[in-house]
């Protein structure tokens, strides 16, 4: 078993074309995919063991035309799903062959910035070149008319729950892209999670106005079969926009994280009783962005706008380890998303600064 108290940053996979906004391991393979703010998706093949130079990306998945908000992969590693502000969810066959090649400079933005500041003594870094195969073929789920902000895949990889800024929550199947259920919440969908038995959905909703009477924030647990509210926890989380949510694999614990630019408190919720539980400390200062349960079902990782990833024990709410440090000052780049490898020994984090951090937990 990996020792979750001993994280080591083994590689920083540079890709600074824009913010890296989403990340996912592909099934039990060594592959990891990341999406960025421009709609790009790159895939890396990680070495078996830590050490050596950071690997270069192998593939570019070409299709989205706006920010990739979430990535998720089926447990068999065969299908990667990506949601985007271009109103679509794309399904990528991970075995698809590249139909072309593209040359990238993975640190092009850093080079351009340094060139601009050269007269002030900035040192221009050497380029990090990469040649990637380009995959253009994907299936499109077009059941949304707004930015798709949330995406959750069931444990068996057969069912998807996606949500958008129009407040639409859609339950659909991966195989046929058939919509099984659709409902609308009052605000925009900000956080989304599907219980392991697929009977309950957690939806954090918001209308991000500050002063206007139209502002709104809510947290509700929905009965997926009926599309009705099972528990409305909005009063317990009054005024809080929840930016992240995740159920434990046994369905007994739901964790929610306060998003936006706020005190990013993580809170445990009993989803069966619909009761708010313990608030965890420390908070993700400036807001939580993502939550992901470890395959052991006893731990989860959280990410936030404080550039830190934390690993927690869900039974006690105890902090197990902290990955990275706040970069100093206020609002220094976010970690947008986190993903565990299937064996639980690796964690990938989508870093707004233009990189994927790959952490290893020795066994």
């Amino acid at each position: 078993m990996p020792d979750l108290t001993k994280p080591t940053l083994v590689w920083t996979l540079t890709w600074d074309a824009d913010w890296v906004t989403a990340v996912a391991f592909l099934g039990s393979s060594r592959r990891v995919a990341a999406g960025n703010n421009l709609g790009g998706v790159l895939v890396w093949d990680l070495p078996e063991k830590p050490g050596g130079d950071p690997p270069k990306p192998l593939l570019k998945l070409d299709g989205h035309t706006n920010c990739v908000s979430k990535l998720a992969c089926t447990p068999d590693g065969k299908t990667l799903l990506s949601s985007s502000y271009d109103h679509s969810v794309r399904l990528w066959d991970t075995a698809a062959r590249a139909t072309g090649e593209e040359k990238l400079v993975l640190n092009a933005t850093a080079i351009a910035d340094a060139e601009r500041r050269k007269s002030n003594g900035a040192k221009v870094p050497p380029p990090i070149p990469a040649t990637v195969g380009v995959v253009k073929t994907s299936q499109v789920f077009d059941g949304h008319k707004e930015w798709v902000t949330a995406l959750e895949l069931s444990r068996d990889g057969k069912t998807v729950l996606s949500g958008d800024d129009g407040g639409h929550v859609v339950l659909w199947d991966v195989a046929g892209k058939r919509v099984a259920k659709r409902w609308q919440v009052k605000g925009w969908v900000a956080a989304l999670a599907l219980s392991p038995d697929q009977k309950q959905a957690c939806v954090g909703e918001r209308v991000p106005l500050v002063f206007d009477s139209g502002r709104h924030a809510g947290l509700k647990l929905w009965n997926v079969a009926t599309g009705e509210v099972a528990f409305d926890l909005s009063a317990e989380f009054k005024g809080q926009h929840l930016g992240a949510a995740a159920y434990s694999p046994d369905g007994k614990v739901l964790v929610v994280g306060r998003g936006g630019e706020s005190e990013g408190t993580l809170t445990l919720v009993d989803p069966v009783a619909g009761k708010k539980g313990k608030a965890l400390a420390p908070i993700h200062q400036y807001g939580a962005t993502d939550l992901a349960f470890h395959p052991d079902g006893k731990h989860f990782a959280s990410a936030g706008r404080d550039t830190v990833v934390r690993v927690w024990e869900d039974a006690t709410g105890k902090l197990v380890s902290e990955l990275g440090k706040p970069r100093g000052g206020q609002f220094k780049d976010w970690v947008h998303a986190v993903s565990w490898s299937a064996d639980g020994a690796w964690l990938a984090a989508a870093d707004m600064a233009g990189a994927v951090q790959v952490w290893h937990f020795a066994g």
Partner: protein
Amino acid sequence: MSPLCRAGEHLSRRAFLKGAAVTGGGLVLPNWGGLAHARSAAEAATKAKKRCILLWMNGGASQIDTFDMKPGRPTGGPFRPIQTKVTGLQVCEYLPKVAAVADKLAVIRSMKTHSPDHPDGIYHMHTCYKMSERTPHPELGAVIAKFNGDLGSDLPTFVRMGSCGNAGAGYLGPAHEPFSLGREGKLGAFTSPYLAADAEMKRAELFRFVEGEFAADHKAEPFDSHRTAKERAWRLLRAKAVFDISKEWPAARERYGDTDFGRGCLMARKLVEAGVPFVEVGHENYDSHADNFVCHKANMQHLDLAWPALLTDLADRGLLQDTLVVWMGEVGRTPQINNRAGRDHYIRAWTIVLSGGGIRGGQVYGATDADGKDVRDNPVSEGDLFATIYKALGINHRAKHLSGVRPVWLTPEGSQPITELLG
């Protein structure tokens, strides 16, 4: 009587205004609730000259996310442009109804201004003078109230709702001070009488007598301002029905949007129709140093209903040709997106939109560079903007006043109306 003010007469304007609202409470004229106000409002409307509605984007709206989009550029952000019926004018995808009335809009993409923060920017973009000047310059609304308003009307001549200007009437004096409504267009609680009509009448008569005695010995401006405000409040009560949009709202709600700003815009339409020469409606939530895109998306969904509905209503009622509608805030927002997913204040190149009375719609004036970082063509200053607004409203932008003994002009020296924008 001593020509010098007594120490106790040195009241601040702020203290006086605060006091006026309190003192005005419960003082109601005898004909309260009668129909006389309707006649006076109609007369005011017929006498009115050109009017102006200022839609104030408090905090500063992002030009790149609304009217000066830079798709595909590093500064572009996640919004996508849509084409309007006006050649060369694309607007944000979240402004489709605005796009549909683009033939009414004159978009100035080349504002280059001088006050980068909120208090000074708000002052500057309401007066066209820097806040640091010692002269108390009047807001746009006060100037329009003076030149195009009817002081004999029961209605106020300068009305505002929500977060708006901060300069007031300045050297134009208390007669032109703004009358503030709640953000959603509600009248203050002081307009609700708490005594029976006959008791109110006796109370008002007694109060006027006491005030008259007091005025004989107290000539200082704050006291005069106090009395002026009270008189205006009493007169306003006669026209209170104009401020009630409850009958129109059910039919208008869907078009204007069920928001504070939507109600404010409907109220503005009703007030200018009744003869109020200047109404300012504040729209909040634009100061998006963090999460700029979700903030703007939420705001645009309100803006895209209320603003086009207002323009369409004004046009349908034959009022738009005499009503200038200005869309602006105190600053623009940086082309660069910061690491809070925000945009900060920016004054080197930003956008303001004019439409309606005196303006030739369906055009874009000025241009910025590829990333929106600087003005490429036809820079427009605060003074030029105000000169254009005043010209469109039939007001001499170089009209001279005295602030104490010092001559002052409505716009700074060298300010020129932009003739291309004028109809």
